C-alpha cells in the first residue's frame, strides 16, 4: 500500500523510500512489527504490505527488464497518468488503456528464495514467538503510520484506498484494482482461489516442486525481486529481507494456462511449459517479494542480537564472555552424559560445534574441524538420538543416514536443469554453519552405483576442501561452503576427516539400552538456551595469536620432532593449531594463551594414545 504512493513521478522517491525504511527498521524493535513470511501463513498477509522473510538464496534467475515508469492513457478521458513499475509485477491499466511510449526501462534481478534449509524447530519457535501476530488490526497500525509520512499521494490511489479497507481479510484479494481492470472471469477466478488457498497449499505443492534443498522441508518459498546492488548477493547466502509482498493473481494466470495457450502469446511462445511453471509459479504458492532492504544473516540464532557481534554490542558480548567458561563446563557435563560418559569425546564435540571456516588460503580452508566419532554403539538407535540432541542445540542441521539407498538415489549435488532453466537443489546446498550429521552406522553391504560413487566423492570434497562442485552439465562450478560435518560411525569412517576419536563407553553393555533411553531427557529450556547462545557466540569470536606464543609453539614443534620425528607431522601441527584455536574460543578467549596451547597439546595426546590403543585392540584398523 505504500507502493501506492510511489506512482508519483518524482525521481528521488526510490532512494528516499529505501532510506526511510532503513531508518525505521533501525529503531529498536522495529523489525518485530513487520510480519514475517516465515511464520505467518501467506493467506493472513495482506498483499502489497511490508513483510520480512528469513531466507536462503537457492537460485538466481536471469535479470528482468521492467517498465520503470510508463504513461497510461485512458481512452475515454484521454487523461495521461505517469506511473511507476518499481516494486510491482503488473502494470496498472484497464482493458482499453494504451501505454505511451515514454517508457523508462530498468533492470531488476530475481532470486529464488527458500527458508533456511535444515532450520531447527526451536529456531522457528523462538523467532515466531517474538513476532507480532498478524491480525488485521495490528498490521494496519504501522502501515497507517507510514502512510502519513508520504505526503505526495496521488489521487488515483486515494480513491482505491477505501476499497481496500473494505476487504481487509481477503487473503488472496485481487487488491486495489480489482473493480477497475479485472475482467469478470478474472475476478471469479480469484475468489475461487481465495477459498482454496489455505487448504490446497499443501496439496498443490506436491505437483509443483518448490525445490527445497533438503527432502521433507516445507515452508514458503518466494521470488525475491532485487532492485539494486544485486551483485552483493551470493548463492547460498542467508538473508533477512524486508519487502513488499505481491500475490497478484494475474501472475498465476500464466501458470494456469497450459502449454498450448502459451504458444498464442507471440513473446512467450518460446519458453517451454516447464520453464514457465518454474519461473512463474502461482503467486499463492510462491509469492513475489519486492525487496526494499536486506541484510545478510551472520547466524540464524534468534537468541543472539540480530545485528551480529561486531556492532557495538560490547555489553552483550562481555557479559556472555564472562559466563562462557561456566556454560562450557555445564555443556561438557551434558555431552559427557550423552556420549556414554566419555569426557574426551565430549570435549572434541564442543570443539567441533564451535568450528567455522574463517578464511581460505589458496584452496585450503582454515578452521574447519570435521569430526569422526567412531565406536558408536549400534544399539537402540544411538546415532539418531544423538542427532536429535545436536539439533536441539544448533540453529540448523541435517541428518543424512548413509544408507546404500540414500547414497545411490539422493541428489546431494545441485544440478542445473536446462529444460526448466533452474538449479535443482541437492542436499549439500546448505547455508553457512549448518551441521551436517552423517550417520555411517546405517551403511550396509552392497554396491554403490555411479550416483553413489559421485555422492561419496562429493562428500569427500566437502569435507576436505569445504566446497561443492555444482553440476552444470557442460562444466562444473565450484561453490565454497562452510558446513560442519560430523560423522558417526562404528569403525573408522570411509570418508576423510580432520580428526577421529573413538568413543569409549563407560556404561556396561547390559545397561546400554536403558541408559540410552534416558539420554534424551532434555535439560531445562533456560539451560538449553544458554547452550545455544554459547555455541553461536563462540563460533563468531575473533581470534589471534600473539608473537611470543607463536615462538613457543614453534619451539614445541621442533622439540617434539627432535624426540621422535614420527610422532608429529606437519598435518598434526595443522590439527593442533586448529584445536588450540577452537579450545581458546570455546573458553571465551580471543587470543591463544600458553595454557590453552598446552591444554590443546594434552587433549591431542590423549586422543592419539586412545587411537594407538584402539589400533592394538583391533588390528584391522589401519
Amino acid at each position, binding site marked *: 500500500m505504500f507502493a501506492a504512493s510511489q506512482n508519483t513521478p518524482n525521481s528521488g522517491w526510490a532512494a528516499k523510500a529505501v532510506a526511510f525504511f532503513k531508518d525505521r527498521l533501525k529503531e529498536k524493535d522495529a523489525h518485530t512489527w513487520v510480519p514475517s513470511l516465515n511464520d505467518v501463513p501467506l493467506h493472513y498477509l495482506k498483499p502489497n504490505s511490508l513483510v520480512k522473510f528469513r531466507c536462503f538464496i537457492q537460485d*538466481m534467475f*536471469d*535479470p*528482468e*527488464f*521492467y*517498465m520503470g515508469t*510508463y504513461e497510461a492513457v485512458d481512452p475515454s478521458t484521454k487523461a495521461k497518468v505517469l506511473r511507476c*513499475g518499481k516494486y510491482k*509485477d*503488473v*502494470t496498472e*491499466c484497464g482493458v*482499453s488503456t494504451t*501505454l505511451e511510449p515514454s*517508457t523508462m*526501462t*530498468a*533492470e531488476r534481478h530475481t532470486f529464488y528464495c527458500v527458508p533456511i534449509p535444515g532450520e531447527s524447530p526451536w529456531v522457528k519457535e523462538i523467532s515466531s514467538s517474538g513476532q507480532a501476530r498478524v491480525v488485521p488490526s495490528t498490521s494496519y497500525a504501522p502501515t497507517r503510520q507510514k502512510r502519513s509520512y508520504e505526503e505526495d499521494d496521488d489521487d488515483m490511489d486515494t480513491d482505491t484506498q477505501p476499497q481496500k479497507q473494505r476487504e481487509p481479510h481477503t487473503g488472496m484479494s485481487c487488491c486495489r484494482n480489482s473493480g477497475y481492470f479485472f*475482467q469478470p472471469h478474472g475476478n471469479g477466478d480469484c475468489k475461487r482461489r481465495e477459498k482454496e488457498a489455505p487448504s490446497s497449499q499443501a496439496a498443490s505443492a506436491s505437483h509443483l516442486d518448490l525445490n527445497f534443498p533438503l527432502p521433507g522441508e516445507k515452508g514458503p518459498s518466494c521470488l525475491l525481486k532485487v532492485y539494486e546492488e544485486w*551483485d552483493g548477493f*551470493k*548463492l*547460498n547466502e542467508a538473508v533477512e529481507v524486508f519487502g513488499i509482498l505481491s500475490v497478484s493473481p*494475474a*501472475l498465476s494466470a*500464466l501458470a494456469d*494456462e497450459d502449454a*498450448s*495457450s502459451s*504458444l498464442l502469446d*507471440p*513473446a*512467450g*511462445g518460446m*519458453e517451454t511449459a516447464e520453464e514457465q511453471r518454474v519461473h512463474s509459479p502461482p503467486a499463492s504458492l510462491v509469492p513475489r517479494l519486492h525487496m526494499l532492504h536486506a541484510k545478510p544473516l551472520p547466524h540464524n540464532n534468534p537468541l543472539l542480537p540480530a545485528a551480529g557481534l561486531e556492532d557495538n554490542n560490547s555489553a552483550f558480548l562481555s557479559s556472555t564472555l564472562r559466563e562462557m567458561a561456566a556454560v562450557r563446563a555445564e555443556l561438557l557435563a551434558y555431552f559427557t552424559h550423552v556420549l556414554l560418559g566419555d569426557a574426551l569425546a565430549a570435549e572434541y564435540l564442543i570443539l567441533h560445534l564451535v568450528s567455522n571456516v574463517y*578464511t581460505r*588460503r*589458496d*584452496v*585450503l580452508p*582454515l578452521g574447519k574441524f570435521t569430526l569422526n566419532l567412531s565406536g558408536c554403539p549400534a544399539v537402540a538407535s544411538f546415532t539418531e538420538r544423538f542427532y536429535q540432541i545436536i539439533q536441539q542445540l544448533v540453529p540448523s542441521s541435517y541428518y543424512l543416514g548413509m544408507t546404500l539407498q540414500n547414497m545411490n538415489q539422493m541428489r546431494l549435488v545441485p544440478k*542445473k536443469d536446462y529444460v526448466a*532453466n533452474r538449479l535443482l537443489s541437492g542436499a549439500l546446498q546448505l547455508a553457512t554453519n549448518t551441521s551436517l550429521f552423517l550417520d555411517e552406522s546405517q551403511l550396509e553391504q552392497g554396491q554403490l552405483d555411479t550416483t553413489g560413487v559421485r555422492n561419496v566423492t562429493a562428500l569427500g570434497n566437502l569435507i*576436505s576442501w569445504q566446497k561443492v562442485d555444482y553440476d552444470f*552439465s*557442460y*562444466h562444473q*562450478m565450484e561453490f*565454497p561452503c562452510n558446513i560442519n560435518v560430523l560423522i558417526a560411525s562404528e569403525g573408522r569412517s570411509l570418508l576423510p576427516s580432520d580428526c577421529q576419536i573413538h568413543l569409549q563407553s563407560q556404561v556396561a553393555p547390559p545397561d546400554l539400552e536403558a541408559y540410552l533411553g534416558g539420554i534424551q531427557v532434555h535439560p531445562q529450556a533456560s539451560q538449553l538456551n544458554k547452550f545455544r547462545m554459547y555455541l553461536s557466540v563462540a563460533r563468531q569470536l575473533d581470534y589471534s*595469536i600473539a608473537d611470543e606464543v*607463536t615462538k613457543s609453539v*614453534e619451539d614445541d*614443534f621442533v622439540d617434539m*620432532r627432535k624426540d621422535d620425528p614420527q610422532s608429529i*607431522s*606437519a598435518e598434526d*601441527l*595443522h590439527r593442533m*593449531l586448529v584445536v588450540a584455536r577452537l579450545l581458546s574460543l570455546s573458553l571465551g578467549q580471543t587470543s591463544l594463551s600458553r595454557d590453552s596451547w598446552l591444554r590443546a597439546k594434552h587433549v591431542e595426546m590423549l586422543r592419539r594414545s586412545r587411537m594407538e590403543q584402539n589400533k592394538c585392540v583391533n588390528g584391522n584398523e589401519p
Partner: protein
Amino acid sequence: MSSPLSTPGGRKRGRTTNPSTREFTCPPSTWPQVGVSRLVPTVPPNEVDMSSPLMYGTPSSRVEGTPRSGVRGTPARQRPDLGSVSKAPQVDLQSEPPSADGAVASEANAGQRHRKIFPLSLFIDPSSSEDENTGLDLNEPLYMQKLEEISVVGDPVLNVNCLHVQSFDAELYRQLICYPQEVIPTFDMAVNELFFERFPDSILEYQIQVRPYNALKTRNMRNLNPEDIDQLITISGMVIRTSQLIPEMQEAFFQCQVCAFSTRVEVDRGRIAEPAVCRHCNTTHSLALVHNRSLFSDKQMIKIQESPDDMPAGQTPHTTVVYAHNDLVDKVQPGDRINITGVYRAVPMRANPRQSNVKSVYKTHIDVIHFRKTDEKRLHGLDDAEQKLFTEERVQTLKELAAKPDVYERLASALAPSIYEHEDIKKGILLQLFGGTRKDFSQTGRGNFRADVNILLCGDPGTSKSQLLQYVFNLVPRGQYTSGKGSSAVGLTAYVMKDPETRQLVLQTGALVLSDNGICCIDEFDKMSDSTRSVLHEVMEQQTLSIAKAGIICQLNARTSVLAAANPIESQWNPKKTTIENIQLPHTLLSRFDLIFLMLDPQDEAYDRRLAHHLVSLYYQSEEQLEEEFLDMAMLRDYIAYARTYINPKLSEEASQALIEAYVDMRKIGSGRGMVSAYPRQLESLIRLAEAHSKVRFSEKVETIDVEEAKRLHREALKQSATDPRTGFVDISILTTGMSATARKRREEVAQALKKVIQAKGKTPAMKYHTLLEDLRRQSETAITKEMFDEALRALSDEDYLTVTGKTVRLLA
C-alpha cells in the same frame, strides 16, 4: 503487395490494416509441419517482396523474364534478424531510443551514409591475421576480395568486422552500433550496388546480406543492461539448448471460400490481420487461411549461458535467449562456445493473452546476425583456443616481471604459497604449466612430438600432494581434477550415450579430452584400476585417444599434461624399496613421466622450525600480509597464459650442444657399471624442460642456462625416484624396466650358483624343492630368500635346464 509504402532503407512505417479487420495472433508452430519451411523458399524467385527494406527498385522497373542478374533481377531476402518481422509490438515500448539525430532513418541521411560506405571497399588491413581471411591477399582491399569470393562461391553473405568500420569512420560505426536496424539495410544496399557494378553477370540466389561482427568489445552477458536494447552487441557464451526448427509465417495466404479469391497478408509483429470482408465478392468472414501457400521462414531458439570463465564467484550463470533466422539456423550445437553479434531486443510480456494488462516485465532476446565459434580452432589448429587479450599495461608488467633475474624462483614460490618448501617440486610443476614447444614431425613419420610435461608425485600420505593438485587445478583455465578411486576408464576417456532430446548417440568426453591443452590432475593414481590406467599409455605419449564404441570410431586429441599423485602401497614410504616397489605401478607407465618426485618428510631441525613458522603464520597472518609476499594467483595465471600463447622458444646452437653433452654424460654414468642410465625418452624430457624454462624467461631461444636448469631438475627428480636402495646409485632402469641393474645382476648370480649346486649333485633327475633350497643356502655366503630362489629357478627353467612341477624339480636333458 499489400504495402506500397516502403522507403529505401527505412523500415516500413505504414500499416494497411483495415480498422474493421479482426486481429488474431499467428501460432506458427501449431501448423502442421509438412516441411513447409524448407521447401518453400522465403521469397519465390519472381515475386519480390516490395515491403522489404532492401528493395528499392520500383515495381514497374522490373521486367518479368529478364535474366536474373544485376541488382534488380536478384530477389532480396527478408531479414527477420533485423526485425522486419517482429517489429515494434502493439504497445510500442521498445521504440527507438530517444535519438538526437532522429533523422537517422531519413532518406537523405541514408543516401549520405550510403555514399560513405563505398570507400570502405578500399579498406586494406595488412595487419589482419584472422583465420577467415586466409587465402586473401592482405595488401589488396579486403572487402573487394571478399566480394569476388562471393561472386565465385555464390554464398551471398558478407561478414564485416566492426573494428574495420570503426577505424574507417567512427561516426558511421557509432550509428551502426546504435541503430543497426536502419544502418545495416543501407550497408546491404551499398554492397549490392557495388557488387553488381563489378560483377554484373553473376547470379546469386538472393541479394547479399551484410553481417557485421565484433561489435565494440566483446561483452559479458552480465553487463547487458536496458541501455543496450535495440543496439548491436557482441557477447560470448556457451550454447546450452537449441530448439527445433520453427517455421515462422512471413506472409499469410487467404482464400475466399465463396469465390476463391485469394489475398496475401503480411505478418506484422507476430500478428496477421485477417481480412474480414472478401474484396471480390463482399462476403464477410469467408476468407480461410491456406498454410501450404503461405510463406514461412526458418527460426530457431537458442539458449546461451555465460561461460564459466567470466563469472563472478558465488553466483549462478545467466542465460539469454537468442533467435537465429534463415541460414543461421542449426549453425551451432549445444556445448559450443560462441561469440554472437546481434540486436538486443525486449518485448513486453502479457500476463494472459486474454487479458490486456501487461506484466510490467519484458522478455529479452537477441536476434542473431552473426555467429562465431570460439572453439572452432581448437579442433583444427594447434593454437591455444584462448585468445586471451592482455591490455598494454598488463603486458608491460608481465615483461617487467620476466626481465627480473629471479623470475623463475619468484614464480615457483608464488605457486601454492600455503604449501611449504618442496621448491624443486614447485619448479617442476611450474615448468609443466608452461610446457614445451609443439613440434610437428608428421612428415618424417614421427607424428606430433609431445610438448607437455608429465609429473608424478609420490610420497607419504599427508604431505599435501592433494593440495598441490587442487591448487594447480584451480590455477589453469582448462584443468580437470579426478581421483583415481572414483574414475573409470570411460570417465577419463569418452563414452557414448543417447541424448535424451535428440535421441541420437552422442560422444560424451571425459576428463582427459576435456583437459586438452590443459592439465589433468589425477589424485590417488595408485588406486586406479589397471584397465583405467591402460588408457593413459596412449594419452601420455601420443597425446591422442582412440575410441571404438557403439559404431563410433575416432581419435580425439588429448594434448594434456598429466599431474598425478600416488601413495605408497604400504601407506608409508619404504626407503628400502625402489619407487616401483613402493607404488606398484607398471614401469611402462612410469617411464612416461618426465619427472617423478618424492614428497617425503625431511627430518632435520632447521627444516622443522621453518615449517612450524610457516604453518603458524598461516593461521594468524592476515590476508594482506601474505599477498605482499607473493605474486597473486591472477598474475601468475596471466603470466602463464601469455607465455603459452606468445612464446615459442627454439633450441639455440649452444643449447643443442649442451643437451647432447648432457645426454652422453647420462649414458656414460651407467656404462661404467654395465648398465644403461638414459634412454631417448630422457633426452626428450630434457628438451621439453629446457624449452619450458626459456618460456618462463619469455625468451624465444633456448640457451645453456635453460639446459642447465633442466638437467638439474631432471637429476634432482631422478635422484629421488630412481635411486637403487641397495647400492645408492641412480639407476634409470628402475623406472624403465622396473628392476635395477644390480638386482638383475644378482639374480643372474644366484641362478649360476644354483646351477652349480645342482651339477654338484651329479645324476639326479629329480630333486625336492626344499632340499634344493637348503643346499643352496648352505653353499651361498649371502642370505638367500625364498623369492630369490624362485627367481633363480625360473631363470634356469627359461634356459630349459630344468622344470618345476609342484614340489619337485626335474632336470631336463
